[in-house]
């Protein structure tokens, strides 16, 4: 591997790049999706070290972001901050986050000889792909957001992902900074194996309206990583994230370098968090135009990562204030005089957070809501996870609930067993076109409806909406 920034002619790399670029354009021209993964496959056959070679030529290095939830949003936030700083950023922005997808995205943003047009890389990594991405990219900053139960048929147990991440940490260079969520007990333990600097972030706001009173059903890591005793929480913010401690051995959440102090959540509209930085001992008031506790965590991670890169506080707050959400995370769509608010749901923890946000922490859900559940590979083929989501939160509300998707019938049945009156549950046809038509017809003119789809259900619904001129294709963002 050559020195950073140097450009030497590498025939294998050049051929791989030509393949990546050529087929990327060709696939998009054929209208088959965004063309984000297939060119990477071809390029990978020609030069398996493509990603390592391109990222080695980034003069300011790379930031890698991993986590079960929030990695797309967090990496986009980081990229926006770095661009606001005036740096050119190479980024797998479409969310294609396996090794080949990352290589493909970065190849597109490089010259035919493999010189990136950017100065710094921001790379979102799939959980299972993290060791290989760390091995090739040698990141300057690695951000670990959280580790939740997700798609067990694809990823296996939580413990096996934690083992993979430990392997990734073992491959890090001593000058890599690990930015890690100290509120996650599993990650706090993993961080003790990091060879270099560790920067911890977490929440310290104690406003009772932001706290959970009990661990949700979807939670895995509630025992002490050191001694096995059940953990206690002085404050629990989301899933198993919080100010944790072990009553048996005394281990506790580490001292935080970036504290989320004052949190304000404005429904489905916005959120604010005051981030205290221990060095240089100042406070950044972060105002987000995206909602929810989980986005406050994402902003905290992005603030920590960019602070570690030496970015000025004013640049961080400015870029985050104008940040817009990533594909499907929260989007508004106008259709036939109604407003649809779309929010992607992909695992129990994310689903619980969305339900908390929509229902005002379980007080009431008053907006008609359609839930679309598919069981294709990208969704997770096993729909058992729906039984770990706390739909019981919706039992107090009055809003009608609509179900659709390949496994819409499972979803309707789940709502029934959550104690929701069957009169409120309206199964719609499985086909996305028919479901959208029926849901829009059920909304009065001028009204808002929430739409909560799994990943491929989101793609299906977007296509149905696009055909009516309601939304743009996501890879054009």
């Amino acid at each position, binding site marked *: 591997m050559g020195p950073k920034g140097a450009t030497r002619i590498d025939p294998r790399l050049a051929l791989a790049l030509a393949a990546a670029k050529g087929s990327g354009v060709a696939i998009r021209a054929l209208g088959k999706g965004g063309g984000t993964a297939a060119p990477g496959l071809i390029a990978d056959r020609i030069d398996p070290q493509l990603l390592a070679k391109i990222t080695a030529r980034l003069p300011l290095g790379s930031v890698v972001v991993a986590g079960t939830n929030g990695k797309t949003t967090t990496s986009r936030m980081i990229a926006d901050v770095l661009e606001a700083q005036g740096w050119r950023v190479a980024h797998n922005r479409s969310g294609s986050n396996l090794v080949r997808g990352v290589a493909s995205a970065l190849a597109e943003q490089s010259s035919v000889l493999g010189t990136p047009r950017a100065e710094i890389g921001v790379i979102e990594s799939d959980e299972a792909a993290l060791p290989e991405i760390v091995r090739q990219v040698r990141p300057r900053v690695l951000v670990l957001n959280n580790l939740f*139960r997700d798609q*067990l*048929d694809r990823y296996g*147990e*939580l*413990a096996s992902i934690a083992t993979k991440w430990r392997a990734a940490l073992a491959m890090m260079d001593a000058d890599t900074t690990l930015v890690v969520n100290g509120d996650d007990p599993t990650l706090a333990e993993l961080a003790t194996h990091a060879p270099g600097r560790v920067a911890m972030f977490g929440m310290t706001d104690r406003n009772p309206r932001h706290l959970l009173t009990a661990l949700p*059903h979807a939670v*895995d890591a*509630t025992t002490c990583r050191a001694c096995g005793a059940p953990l206690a929480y002085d404050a629990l913010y989301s899933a198993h994230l919080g100010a944790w401690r072990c009553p048996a051995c005394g281990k506790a959440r580490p001292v935080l370098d970036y504290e989320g102090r004052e949190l304000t959540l404005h429904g489905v509209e916005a959120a604010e968090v005051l981030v205290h930085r221990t060095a240089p001992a100042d406070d950044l008031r972060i105002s987000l135009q995206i909602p929810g506790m989980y986005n406050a965590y994402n902003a905290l991670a992005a603030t920590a990562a960019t602070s570690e890169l030496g970015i000025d506080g004013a640049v961080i707050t400015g870029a985050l204030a104008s940040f817009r959400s990533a594909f499907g995370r929260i989007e508004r769509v106008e259709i036939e005089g109604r407003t649809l608010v779309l929010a992607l749901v992909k695992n129990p923890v994310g689903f619980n957070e969305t339900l908390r946000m929509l229902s005002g922490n379980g007080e009431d859900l008053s907006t008609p809501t359609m839930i679309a559940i598919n*069981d294709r590979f990208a969704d997770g*083929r*096993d*729909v*058992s*996870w*729906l*039984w*770990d989501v706390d739909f019981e939160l919706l039992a107090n509300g009055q809003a009608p609930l609509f179900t659709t998707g*390949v*496994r*819409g*019938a*499972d979803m*309707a*049945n*789940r709502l*029934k*067993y959550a*104690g929701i009156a*069957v009169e409120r*549950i309206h*199964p719609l046809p*499985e086909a996305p076109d028919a479901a959208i038509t029926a849901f829009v017809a059920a909304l009065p003119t001028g009204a808002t409806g929430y739409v909560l789809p799994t990943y491929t259900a989101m793609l299906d619904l977007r296509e149905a909406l696009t055909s009516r001129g309601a939304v743009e294709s996501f890879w054009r963002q």
Partner: protein
Amino acid sequence: MHLTICWLYPTSMNIYGDRGNVLALERRAQWRGIDVTTIGAGIGEPLPEDVDLFFIGGGQDGEQVAVAHDLQGAKSEAIRRAVDDGAVLLAICGGYQLLGHEYRPHDAAPLPGIGLVDLVTVAGPERFIGNVVVESEFGTLVGFENHSGLTTLGPGVKPLGTVSVGRGNNGIDGFEGVRHRNVVGCYLHGSLLPKNPVLADWLITKALERRYGAVTLAPLDDAFEHEAHASATARAVATR
């Protein structure tokens, strides 16, 4: 009438939405005016008295080892006595494996089961992952399997049914699960009971009959359950 459910290891053995099975038992009893008490019994905690119905789900490998050791001795004796006396037991996935003599991993000492049923599980070379359809005495059952353990029933031991879609106990003999007294063990997640209400009602009936004599449960409107069952079965046929 009153039904006491003991949920064995509710935090350790609850990886694939197994809570749905407990919810289905509770709701379907309550909808018929039956009082339900559910008591969790975790590692190091004593078993409650007078249990009508035990439930144990599946867990991560590490958790399953801890649970296997916790079950040894007095706890497995108490469960055996209750089952011999007619108590009902539903065991899913890892919990199902623990009903047998032992689980033999690739590279570690065998993990002892409670020996309640004559079956043995051996770590296999591949993971069976996908939708499953089983023909059983309770009609067609549908669920999702995700296991690498290969379970073989002893001579004369009755399976829960035969697989028409999916791999089942071991991918060879075509059997899925086990039936023994009022015990049902199987690999089916889904959760199993909410979309297989016939089995859920059979478990509730058997649990009540031990205490109250012959019981006939009032019929329920199961339109949502039947729709979930039908669409999952169609999906299973289409995907495997």
